[in-house]
């Protein structure tokens, strides 16, 4: 299969899947599952083919417009492959966790459609095509949140769409200026030219990525979108779409304009710190279980920004690890929060209480993922946060150890949430609820738990990828 088909086939064939499976809707999920497994193996195959010394694996040039220097260049390096593997894995798990979703034909066709542009984002090095795929991921998400979401879904979906779209426009102007100054749309070629006035371009692009991540003043879309989205889609929003922001930050600011990034690194650091602490405090304050998880997600992405701002090999590796860790840790939290709402019909933790007695499996996984989120040794969260703190201390000195506070704050909200919702006296609402969880959901949650512990004990595969991805920084 040609690389370009992997991007375009799902976009155009998803409508076909919808109309074909309209009569027998349950078939759609098997088609989706099969396609995502294929995607995972393709990504894994690329992982094996990666050049050993870092650098790009070239996949092809398409749709060339020589007059505009514009073509769909597909090439991937270790960073992209890490993101592709993560995306494919999450998509597979999302099929399991949305096994009994309403209107499956439409739902799974939209998921299939989503897989095209999201792969495109991580595969292309052409800036304009990157932007096109970046924008295109919003369309299936708009429908997935707007149709299958909770009570306030329409508001959340439209806000999410508009917010990220508006900020993308700043990035778009930044890309335009990039082309005007260098004469190339292609990332690898731009890298070889000297940029004249990169400060403006840097800020324009940073604004676009920052809103996607999201960081402090631009984060308000996230609690709405992630809370109102169906839980499986929250997983994709947190696990993949936020990663697009971090990926863009690494690709387009750190790799492309290292000098300018270094110049503004302290701003990134300050923004990252504020995001981490502010979102952490908001999470402590929150009674709403899914909002608490959403703020925790923002808080962790703040840590990623801090790690990127160090501009060192260690920092970037830690950022990559935390990106993957965050995706795997936050997903079960979202899933169980959504599942609890679905079962008990309440969002509020103080109305839950005693879940452990009624639904021990879900409660145990919630606690495990929660412990990973607060950085318990033996889980992915620990490795991520420890490496981030070490790299930040190396880069900025001892005072930066205040970010260990973030761990403390997350311990606060996680443990309190566990205390209120999972343990504690059994509330009347929980008392009269009969908790049921389908087998595919149990299976997916088990996989998440396994991965959290596996990479917590054996983080080396991810750091190997990071080693290849950031070899331009000198390597370890």
């Amino acid at each position: 299969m040609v690389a370009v088909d992997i991007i375009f086939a799902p976009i155009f064939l998803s409508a076909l899947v919808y109309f074909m499976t309209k009569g027998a809707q349950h078939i759609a999920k098997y088609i989706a599952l099969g396609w995502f497994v294929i995607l995972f193996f393709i990504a894994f195959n690329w992982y094996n083919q990666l050049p050993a010394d870092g650098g790009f694996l070239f996949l092809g040039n398409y749709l060339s417009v020589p007059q505009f220097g514009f073509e769909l260049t597909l090439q991937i390096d270790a960073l992209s492959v890490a993101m592709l593997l993560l995306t494919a894995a999450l998509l597979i798990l999302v099929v399991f966790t949305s096994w009994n979703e309403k209107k499956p034909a439409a739902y799974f066709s939209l998921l299939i459609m989503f897989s095209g542009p999201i792969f495109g984002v991580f595969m292309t090095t052409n800036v304009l095509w990157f932007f096109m795929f970046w924008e295109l991921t919003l369309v299936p998400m708009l429908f997935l949140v707007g149709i299958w979401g909770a009570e306030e879904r329409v508001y959340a979906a439209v806000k999410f769409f508009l917010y990220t779209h508006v900020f993308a426009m700043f990035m778009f102007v930044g890309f335009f200026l990039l082309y005007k100054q260098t004469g190339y749309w292609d990332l690898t070629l731009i890298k070889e030219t000297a940029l004249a006035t990169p400060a403006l371009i840097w800020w324009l692009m940073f604004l676009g990525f920052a809103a996607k991540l999201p960081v402090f003043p631009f984060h308000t879309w996230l609690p709405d979108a992630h809370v109102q989205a169906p839980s499986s889609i929250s997983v994709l929003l947190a696990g993949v779409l936020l990663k697009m922001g971090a990926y863009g930050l690494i690709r387009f600011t750190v790799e492309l304009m290292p000098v300018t990034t270094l110049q503004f690194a302290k701003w990134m650091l300050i923004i990252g710190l504020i995001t981490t602490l502010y979102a952490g405090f908001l999470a402590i304050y929150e009674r709403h279980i899914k909002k608490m998880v959403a703020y925790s997600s923002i808080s962790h992405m703040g840590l990623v920004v801090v790690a990127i701002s160090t501009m060192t090999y260690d920092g970037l590796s830690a950022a990559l690890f935390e990106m993957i860790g965050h995706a795997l840790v936050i997903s079960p939290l979202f899933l169980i929060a959504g599942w609890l709402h679905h079962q008990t019909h309440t969002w509020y933790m103080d109305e839950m209480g005693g879940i452990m007695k009624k639904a021990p499996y879900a409660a145990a996984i919630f606690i495990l993922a929660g412990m990973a989120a607060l950085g318990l040794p033996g889980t992915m969260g620990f490795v991520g946060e420890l490496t981030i703190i070490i790299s930040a201390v190396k880069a900025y000195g001892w005072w930066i150890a205040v970010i260990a506070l973030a761990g403390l704050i997350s311990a606060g909200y996680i443990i309190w949430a566990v205390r209120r919702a999972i343990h504690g006296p059994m509330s009347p609402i929980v008392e009269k609820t009969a908790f049921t969880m389908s087998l595919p959901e149990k299976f997916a949650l088990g996989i998440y738990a396994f991965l959290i512990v596996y990479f917590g004990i054996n983080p080396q595969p991810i750091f190997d990828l990071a080693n290849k991805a950031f070899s331009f920084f000198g390597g370890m």
Partner: protein
Amino acid sequence: MSFIVLIAAGLLVPVFYRSNIFIAKMIAVAAFIVAAYFIYTGQSLNSVFSYFVMDDATRLMEFVLLATLAAVSLSLTGFERPLIAQMLFLAGASLAFLETNNFFMYIVLFEVIAIISYILVANIRNFYNAEGAIKAFIAGAVASGIILFGFALFSFTTDSFNYTDMNVSGKFTLIAVAIMLAGIFYKLTVVPMHGWAADAYSQVNHAAAAILSGVIKSVVLVATFKAFYKFLVVYPLATVLIFSFFAILTMTLANFMALWQKRISKILAYSSIAHSGYALIPFAAVASVYSYSGILYYAIAYIFMQTSVFLILNDLRRELGVKYLEDIKGLYKKAPLHSLIFTVQLFSLAGIPLLAGFLSKAVAFYAGVDAGLWWIVLIALLNSALAVGYYVWIIKHIYFDEPNNNVTINMSQGSLIGQLILLAGTVYFGIVASDVFSATISL
């Protein structure tokens, strides 16, 4: 030859209006195809008269125009049959308008197209149609007067009207050009000359509105750019000031007005006005090599998507009586195919990638950045992000709300083929940009 075929077909089709509308439509489509073939083989007005030239960009625009008009004629019903002959005449006049390299011919053909547009909107069935038609007519007449006044001033200072050897630096030229532009801005619905369009586009028959707002505007955009190119290059400062001022004014006002509207046709009318604002950016960026590509791409993308949305609205209005946003609640259940195509075309208007709306905006706006107007482009992009608000609001009514009743409708075969032609155009030019560039910029 293509011109003769189109005019002859235009004279022939009214014979079949009463007896068989299908034959009339097929004659029209055949005429468009034959005309396209003659353009492809290089025979057009330029082989007969010296003041017409054919180049790659013109040819591309002409193919797009003929395809669009064929799509429109396929989706017409008996009720709109007078449009078939009018479209054939319009196609003939537009071919000449696009090919001309003579300023005098440009003015004459501009008037011809204006007159055809008055006839197009004159398909009057009720009071609202009449109001829209009268407004279009009076505004057009005022515009004609202004253009002719400017043209009279200009004709004093030049010996030749040929684009290549016009005298563009005469004493009154700048004033004359400004006056002519003021008249042309009426046709391009630039704020503050837009007042008629909001009513005319939304109140005349929607099929006529599709041609008026989609086809005619695109053709005027491309031909005007070619006609005024030399003036714009000679007066760079005035060009940037005038066009960026009107661009920002137009898009901002139109977008805010569109956000207020409850009638779908009004939203689409204001969206069309806003698009005129975006399309002025390549004019302001005439210093860039990409400005011609930008305007051509914009016109091509715009002709497909705008025509398509108005045609779908025409279908919905006829079958379901859709007028207001409430009427399309849960449309995906009542008319799945209409909903899907409508949504795709709205996304294209909103500038979502892999659709022509995005790449055309990218190229047109890049021309602006290339000419050093990046802050205007930023305003335009934020405006287009604002515009997403009302496009998504329409889509929200279609897909996120539940229907009021259970009426279901199907798309007629002609309509479906027409819409698929337009959709193919939107998607093709959303992915493949090389045609436009190779037509406008030689390596």
